């Protein structure tokens, strides 16, 4: 009769003890790892054992009983959906965090609030310049007041130089950080690849390698901060009918992403590496991905990137170029901080370049980033300061350079006579309203009386080259002109001749009042003044006075900062919540483990009790049966 085995029950007891022992081991493992970062709680998988098949001579009175418990393995409790949500939040968090830290550095330089006794530093200096011009206005002809204006202007341009230098330093620091980030990402990708190798080998040999998987998950979490990724597990045959899971990490792609925006970063034992594109200069800090390689250097194709030129399309082997908007995360945030110039963006970046050969559309250059005009990074603020310096210099220089005219508006010669338009003298005179052709300019230059001179230049030592080689003034090179510095040129008090001589009256302040008015009147700031090929290069992006422009730049920065901080707080809160939920599934809870301890200890004791009972029962059978009359 089947199913009756004298010593079979010992196996059951032994298996029970073993299962309880294993479970206690796992519980102990969980408890000791309660503070390990990234640890996922484990549990023993048990299955009840049934040994037996169909007996040819089975009877319906046979009773088949199972033979105990089998430990089929140890598994982790982890919710992959929460992992996906967490990693998506991490990408947004990384993006905002990197952006905010860059904006904070900019704020520390450009924020004028509560500096300079509350008047701001550059703002305060502008106010001081106006005060000195007001003093000069009331004291025309006294050179010491001109010197006061010059000193104030000198302080102002020094501030511009100083700020431009600090902005350059921030940019350089960000570049260093960016390179370090790329190195970190590359080392993470390499480590993930190596872990994939180890996990694969372990799994083939039957070891689920749970701790290695935890380490790998930690690395993937870290990677998701740098760029948004999609993580997949695909099943591959490991041979002999055994299949194992293989990790594939891909770039998640973005709404403005190009054809390579969903490239594979890691495919099992093969991984790519990021690198800066090898072009000089690499203004956009463009990135390339190397080929999918394993530790031996052999390459495979990327199944997600297909070469459309072949038919059917084949996966591409080898390196790839990433577009401007293919990434989303802290790397992209740093790139945007380093490259985005807002209103000063080049037209070719937003609209592309039309085909050089009209009959061949492929010679056109596509746009790099159609949304670039609304993104502002360090270059925008550098160019904004350049724009302000350039406008200040050009307004002052224009107001301070003129030809002498009379009260009716005619330009006059050294005798005080109006200069006629031509030699006949019958067609009228050159006036302030006349459009000056090159000929008329020559005539004026030969006959007229030139007054004043440039007050601001790019720091050159020879002002005579200003006419032939006009200066390109930026915040880092703006300075008081050499002539003003040595006193050859002073602020021009008037451009109109007096009643008694072919020269302005000594205390006529009409040009100084004009300058005063210019300090507070509206000017048009156009991108083309700073970047010749900018988008909408001739449309003003701001109309206002110098100080209003400064205020506007601060407002743009602070609004950006405020909105980024708000978004960061949101993402941080969501990320924390998901993290806590993740912990809820995979974290170790002492109450749980304590209950498990009690439970498994009791089942261990019960299994031992079973063993003892069997032992006693068999003792009776072996030693106490068939010994009649002994």
């Amino acid at each position, binding site marked *: 009769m089947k199913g009756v085995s004298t010593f079979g029950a010992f196996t059951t007891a032994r298996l029970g003890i073993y299962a309880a022992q294993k479970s206690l081991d796992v519980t102990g493992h969980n408890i000791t790892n309660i*503070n390990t970062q990234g640890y996922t709680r484990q549990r023993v998988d048990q299955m009840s054992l049934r040994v037996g098949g169909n007996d040819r001579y089975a009877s319906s009175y046979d009773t088949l009983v199972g033979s105990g418990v089998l430990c089929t393995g140890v598994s982790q409790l982890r919710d992959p959906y929460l992992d996906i949500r967490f990693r998506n939040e991490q990408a947004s968090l990384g993006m905002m965090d990197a952006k905010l830290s860059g904006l904070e550095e900019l704020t520390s330089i450009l924020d004028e*609030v509560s500096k300079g006794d509350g008047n701001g530093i550059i*703002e305060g200096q502008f106010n001081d310049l106006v005060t000195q011009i007001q003093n000069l206005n*009331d004291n025309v002809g006294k050179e010491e007041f001109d010197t006061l204006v010059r000193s104030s202007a000198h302080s102002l341009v020094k501030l511009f130089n100083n700020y431009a230098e600090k902005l350059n330093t921030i940019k350089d620091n960000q570049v260093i950080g960016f390179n370090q980030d790329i190195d970190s990402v590359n080392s993470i990708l390499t480590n993930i690849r190596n872990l994939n190798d180890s996990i694969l080998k372990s799994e083939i040999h039957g070891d689920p390698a749970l701790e290695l998987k935890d380490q790998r998950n930690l690395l993937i979490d870290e990677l998701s901060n740098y760029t948004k990724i999609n993580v997949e597990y695909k099943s591959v045959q490991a041979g002999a009918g055994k299949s194992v899971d293989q990790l594939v990490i891909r770039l998640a792609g973005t709404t403005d992403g190009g054809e390579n925006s969903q490239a594979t970063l890691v495919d099992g034992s093969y991984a790519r590496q990021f690198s800066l594109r090898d072009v000089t200069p690499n203004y956009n800090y463009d990135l390339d991905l190397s080929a999918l390689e394993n530790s031996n250097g052999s390459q495979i194709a990327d199944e997600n990137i297909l070469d459309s030129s072949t038919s059917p399309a084949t996966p591409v082997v080898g390196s790839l170029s990433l577009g401007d908007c293919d990434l989303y995360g802290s790397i992209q945030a740093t790139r945007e901080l380093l490259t985005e110039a807002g209103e000063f963006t080049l037209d070719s970046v937003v609209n592309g370049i039309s085909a050089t050969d009209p009959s061949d559309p492929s010679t056109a250059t596509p746009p790099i980033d159609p949304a670039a005009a609304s993104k502002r990074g360090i270059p925008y603020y550098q160019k904004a300061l350049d724009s302000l310096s350039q406008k200040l210099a050009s307004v002052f220089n224009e107001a301070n350079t003129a030809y002498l005219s009379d009260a009716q508006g005619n330009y006059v010669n050294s005798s005080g006579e109006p200069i006629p338009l031509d030699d006949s003298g019958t067609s009228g005179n050159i006036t302030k309203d006349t459009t000056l052709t090159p000929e008329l300019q020559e005539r004026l230059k030969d006959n007229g009386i030139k007054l004043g001179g440039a007050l601001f230049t790019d720091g050159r030592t020879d002002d005579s080259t200003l006419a032939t080689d006009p200066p390109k003034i930026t915040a880092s090179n703006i300075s008081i002109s050499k002539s003003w510095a040595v006193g050859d040129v002073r602020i021009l008090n008037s451009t109109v001749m007096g009643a008694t001589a072919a020269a302005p009256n000594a*205390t006529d302040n009409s040009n100084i009042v004009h300058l005063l008015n210019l300090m507070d009147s509206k000017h048009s700031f156009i991108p083309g003044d700073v970047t010749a090929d900018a988008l909408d290069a001739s449309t003003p992006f701001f109309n206002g006075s110098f100080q209003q422009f400064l205020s506007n730049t601060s407002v743009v920065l*602070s609004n950006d900062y405020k909105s980024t901080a708000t978004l960061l707080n949101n993402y941080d809160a969501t990320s924390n919540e998901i993290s806590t939920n993740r912990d809820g599934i995979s974290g*170790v809870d002492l109450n749980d483990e304590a209950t498990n301890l009690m439970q498994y200890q009791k089942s261990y004791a019960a299994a031992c009790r079973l063993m003892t009972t069997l032992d006693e029962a068999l003792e009776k059978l072996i030693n106490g049966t068939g010994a009649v009359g002994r």
Partner: protein
Amino acid sequence: MLRITTSGVMRTYKSNLMRSSNQLYDARNKVLTQRNFNSYAEDPAAATQAFKMRRIFSRTSDQLSNNTSLISRFESASTAIASTKNLVEEAANDAGLRSISDPTASGRQPLGEVLSSTAESIVQALNVQYADSFIFAGNDALNPPFSWGDNGNLLFRGISVNSGGVGVRPEGTPPNPAEVASGSEWDQYYTDNPDFKKLAQMSYETAYIDIGNGLSEDSNGDIDSASAFNSAISGINILSFGLDEDGDPKNAVSIIKELSDILKRCDSESGAYANDEDKVAATCLTDKLQKALSSITNKWTSMDAEAQYLKSNEERLTEYSNSINEQILGLEQADLADAITDFSWAQYCYNSALKVGNSILSQSLIDYMN
């Protein structure tokens, strides 16, 4: 959440504690700096407004200091014109009453000397300076405005004040030569009388000072005269210039000088006029001196009115400046009572959070197992 785990609790506690700590930090900063916001990003709208107010405050301070210096200058000018008026009045009385009437005829010659020195005194009074600038020199204030020419004529910045007279002079006050239409009557008259044109130009000179009337330029790029204060005073506007329809000078000093010459020519003992023309001229000039005197009196009154205007403008600017200052304080300065209350509350919340932390790691089943 399905399960509350230790690490979940720790993470949530840490992030909430950090938030509480941040709030405490912000509240403390507000009390220490006494400002409503310490960076642009904290309140961009208020910061923009505050900087705009500060800019306006700085401009108003400049305008106030301009105004104060103008008041002093105009008061000096007013004093000089008052003494000029008195001198001219004296001369008019001397010439009018004492020299014309026959009983006092013998005093004519000495009177001539007196009138001559009166003319000198008037010129000195009008060559007065204020802070190294000549007040009555119009736009050329580094040099004295009035001087005597070689032929005894009074010169204003090198031009004889008695210029003009060729052709028929059009009616009315001479307009600004810069605004005269080409080919018009005045344009022709000015062309024929270049020195008179120069005098007219000098009488219209401007030196605009910003005293808070909204400095602005018109479409030609010239300052709008209503938006600034003209501080240029031309001495010839006070004493008058040019010749009248009889060919006699309008300038008070010139008239006094001529009278003085006539009286000096009189006989030293009898006081008789040198000739009949002199007698007629003396009577005529005496009347014209009265007209010149009334012109000076008008000018003195209007100068006084301008000085009064400057004083009331000073009050207006001072009040405006105070009001702007209050606005700035309202925007920037924190109400300390509120700030301290907020700080106390934030500190209390932070201490409570710390206290929670003591019991964060509550006991578990393991502590109760034996």
